[in-house]
């Protein structure tokens, strides 16, 4: 299983802060899968982190990984 987490305003669209999904080979495939589940992601701004590291290109996802979808930060 892979844990997919959503933060900030993204949770307005997903309605949940995380979902468990079956294995997916890589981050591009996972992002596409999430866009099918949650069409609002097509027009959202977010970054994706795999196991706490920002993903800037397609990356292999190992079983048990955690993926985070994060909108622009607004702390402080």
């Amino acid at each position, binding site marked *: 299983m892979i844990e997919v987490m959503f933060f*900030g305003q993204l949770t*307005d669209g997903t309605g949940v802060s995380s979902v468990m999904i079956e294995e997916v080979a890589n981050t591009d495939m996972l992002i596409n899968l999430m866009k099918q589940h949650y069409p609002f992601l097509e027009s959202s701004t977010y970054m994706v982190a795999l196991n706490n590291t920002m993903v800037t290109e397609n990356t292999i996802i190992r079983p048990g990984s955690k993926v985070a979808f994060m909108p622009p930060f607004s*702390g402080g």
Partner: protein
Amino acid sequence: METRKEKNIFTEGPVEAAFIANSIAKHATNTSIGGHSIFLGQVRADMIGDKQVQAIEYTSHVEMALDAMAKIREDIFAKYELTCMHVHHSLGVIKAGEICLFVFTSSKHRKAAIDACSECVERIKAELPVWGKEILEGEGYQWKINH
């Protein structure tokens, strides 16, 4: 997996003035310090349309935020001659007028503390995965945007 020991910067609820006072008082024993610089973020009761912000609810990707903070700390200690640096960020609902961020730097000569504090605040706002949800009077809310 995580072996590096990271300081927790998050506390549930506001940063209290008494906590700040205690942090300051603790440094009296370090007589190599000549200057302290402190930044405090306070929740503003902005008007969003015709509704006032009553509070901000902060959430975070805590693990990633602590990683990011550890990197900021490392960079700032490498760049400035600091004696110490302390950071506290609130999570949960922080009411207008309450303190949600406390950055505290100390150094022998003032310039290092002042510059490090300011740089640390900018980096916290830009690099820490933290989100603020502005809770309006009545029912609504709006997600905070950092400039």
